[in-house]
């Protein structure tokens, strides 16, 4: 039974992705572009040479972390739309500590990462607290927290970190995840050590959720609050804890951008979308750690590769967005695919 389920868990997303690609191909055909050229461009854009591979990996890194963030909250029945805001405050905190503190790398870099996680955790704590104590729905609060994060961050960049500039100075090497070795290896892409941090975080998430009493309680609260209370668990505490840990993952994603990819933070005209993409990544990865990593890879590849499609195959960016959206659509409606598979299995008997 469990084996069967596992096969299903793999088969369904794979088929969803294939259907999405197929639908994308049809749309390209209908609009007069060659799907073969289009997808070849996509492939080259993601894996064409060492440079693009490096860039793809650095794009995947924060997606893994935001995916983990959203998935973690989902496990205890909470919908954290606030990963976006948590990313932003994490990014800000990382750069700020990077600039403000003078210390050897061995202290500086961990400090930067920890403070970024704390910032994200704080941004998760507020909606968690309001949900647990006053029953305010976390979706509403997290959406508002996203805007608060965006505007406060812009304000701080302009007036605290710089004097009316739009971008901060670059952080010193002691606070940076960038690696000359990885850069030379990939023809000077912006790939950095963050991917290791993200993979390590995935292992941590798996361990907490599957192996510890913390995960046991969080999942129980997600499944059945009444039974959890009966069993002596503190439901409020678990709701808050879930949002805090979720926020910490997202904050770390912000640090990946802040001290990995860019080394600075700039005034933002809109959201980074890393947090919102995390929702899709979590769904696609069925909220478990390994699934999230695989889904983030898929997402990163599509996004990075898509950049090539307009230039080398002439497919307009709008169409590229539609194709990506279609893949997500098919994944979200995987229910239908599941149904067909079950049908098929029965007939086969």
């Amino acid at each position, binding site marked *: 039974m469990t084996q069967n389920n596992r096969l299903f868990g793999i088969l369904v997303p794979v088929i969803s992705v294939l259907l999405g690609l197929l639908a994308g191909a049809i749309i390209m055909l209908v609009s007069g572009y060659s799907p073969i050229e289009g997808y070849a461009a996509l492939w080259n854009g993601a894996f064409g040479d060492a440079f693009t591979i490096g860039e793809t990996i650095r794009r995947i890194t924060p997606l893994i972390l935001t995916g983990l963030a959203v998935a973690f909250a989902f496990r205890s029945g909470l919908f954290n739309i606030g990963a976006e805001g948590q990313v932003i405050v994490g990014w800000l905190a990382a750069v700020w500590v990077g600039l403000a503190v003078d210390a050897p790398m061995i202290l500086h870099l961990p400090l930067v990462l920890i403070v970024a996680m704390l910032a994200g955790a704080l941004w998760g704590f507020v909606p968690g607290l309001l949900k647990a104590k006053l029953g305010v729905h976390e979706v509403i609060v997290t959406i508002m927290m996203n805007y608060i994060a965006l505007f406060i961050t812009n304000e701080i960049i302009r007036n605290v970190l710089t004097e009316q500039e739009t971008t901060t100075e670059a952080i010193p090497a002691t606070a940076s995840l960038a690696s000359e070795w990885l850069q030379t290896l990939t023809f000077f892409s912006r790939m950095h050590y963050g991917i290791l941090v993200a993979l390590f975080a995935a292992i941590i998430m798996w361990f907490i959720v599957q192996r510890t009493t913390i995960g*046991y309680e969080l999942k129980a609260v997600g499944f059945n609050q009444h*039974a959890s209370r009966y069993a002596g668990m503190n439901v409020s505490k678990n709701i808050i804890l879930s949002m805090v840990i979720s926020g910490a993952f997202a904050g770390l994603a912000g640090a990946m951008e802040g001290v990995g990819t860019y080394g600075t933070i700039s005034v933002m005209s809109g959201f980074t979308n890393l947090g919102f993409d995390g929702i899709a990544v979590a769904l696609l990865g069925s909220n478990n750690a390994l699934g999230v990593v695989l889904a983030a890879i898929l997402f990163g590849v599509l996004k990075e590769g898509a950049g090539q499609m307009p230039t080398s195959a002439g497919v307009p960016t709008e169409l590229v967005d539609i194709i990506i959206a279609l893949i997500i659509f098919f994944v979200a409606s995987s229910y239908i695919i599941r149904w067909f598979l079950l049908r098929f299995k029965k007939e086969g008997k």
Partner: protein
Amino acid sequence: MDYVIEMLNIRKEFPGIVANDNITVQVKQGEIHALLGENGAGKSTLMNVLFGLYQPEQGEIRVKGQKVNITNPNIANDFGIGMVHQHFMLVEPFTVTQNIILGSEPTTKSGKINIKKAEREIQELSDRYGLKVDPTAKISDISVGMQQRVEILKTLYRGAEVLIFDEPTAVLTPQEINELIEIMRSLIKEGKSIILITHKLKEIMEVCDRCTVIRKGKGIGTVNIKDTTTNELASLMVGREVSFHTEKKKAVPGQTILEIENLFVKDARKVDLVKGLNLEVKAGEIVGIAGVDGNGQSELIEAITGLRKANSGSIKLNNKSITNLNPRKVTESGLGHIPQDRHKYGLVLDYPVAENMVLQTYYKKPYSKATVLNFKEVYDKAESLIKEYDVRTPSASTLARALSGGNQQKAIIGREVDRSPDLLIAAQPTRGLDVGAIEFIHKKLIEERDKGKAILLVSFELDEIMDVSDRIAVMFDGKIVANVTPENTNEQQLGLLMAGSQLSEAGVHNDSE
């Protein structure tokens, strides 16, 4: 022969288990046909096959002699088959009428839902079968018994000729059971046929015409009720003799374990439901609380277990106050609780059976160390409980959701009794259990008593209260109004006390004086 429904050689498998193995049931037009079998025998599964929720691997179904293929509940409806599930499927904020017409709404010419017409029709149906349902009431405002009658109306409104009842009486009070029996009789009078699943042999003897017995997924045969006895039915079903009376020694009560003084508890609507209650349970005795549902029993239990705040008064366990402590602290002070609503409180249905077995102990050694769970210990414990309490499940890693109702209950009882708490609160512990399992559970409760534990039993089954308790506390209107012993009273007198009569009126000797 005139069979309305024939299920011939039905086979249905679930991963790791054959739930129905070549079962044949034939229901005659106009009869009440009982389906009897132990917990997990496959009764619900068989009926879900008939109702189109599951597809059988083998076998055929005939309606009025015609072979049919029922692939979903809508098709079952078309063939005039309706089902009243054990767990109701109603939309709480909707009215009775809205619930009943859901999915087949009558419309006016302009396409609007014709609610007035529907209400009239439902009122008519309700009057015809004596259901006494108010079509305009909201589901969340009506009693469990009334909700069940709404489910019955739902099937009738859709034109059901054959009604399936899956353990309808498990959730009802004795009064409501009598009403349901009347309703079933009037349905038959109007030409309907009924398939009734129940574990209560008394009910089968009272209303059924024939009974098909299932044991471990296999059909044992069909008997005429006229030609059989309760004992024969019971032994057909379990495959051995069952004793209906629990053997026990006289209780030797020790020191006081639970002491409640002047307790007041409000319900969710802020109305006092427990009003100055006093109660004492001693080590080595079983105290049964008898009472009509809604006289504050649930609130009392919730206050003791820490699930609900007590407004005033005191609750002491082992001479230490546990008033308004949180459930974890209460549990750790030595309390075990078999909750009345097993799906809401007793289990995390989406957890495997094994993880449910450590629901209150997961954070302790040996199940976890420094927050890391030790699954080997958890599964070892679960396996041993599954064995000891005869929980029928394909494996310890099966989700609790997939177990039959009675086996879910056995899992909870195993978990709670095994901790051997100083005070065990058992609320409707045998609800939905088969006679063999009931016998076993009663034995276990008495064993705990003999070990010197205190047991508080809350049950709407007077049989159970009379049989198992050493002392009976009658609860009425939020207070204990009488303390009697089973030897000095009978069901009639208890019934009067539960309805609020004074002891002298009921003619009972009060043992607390």
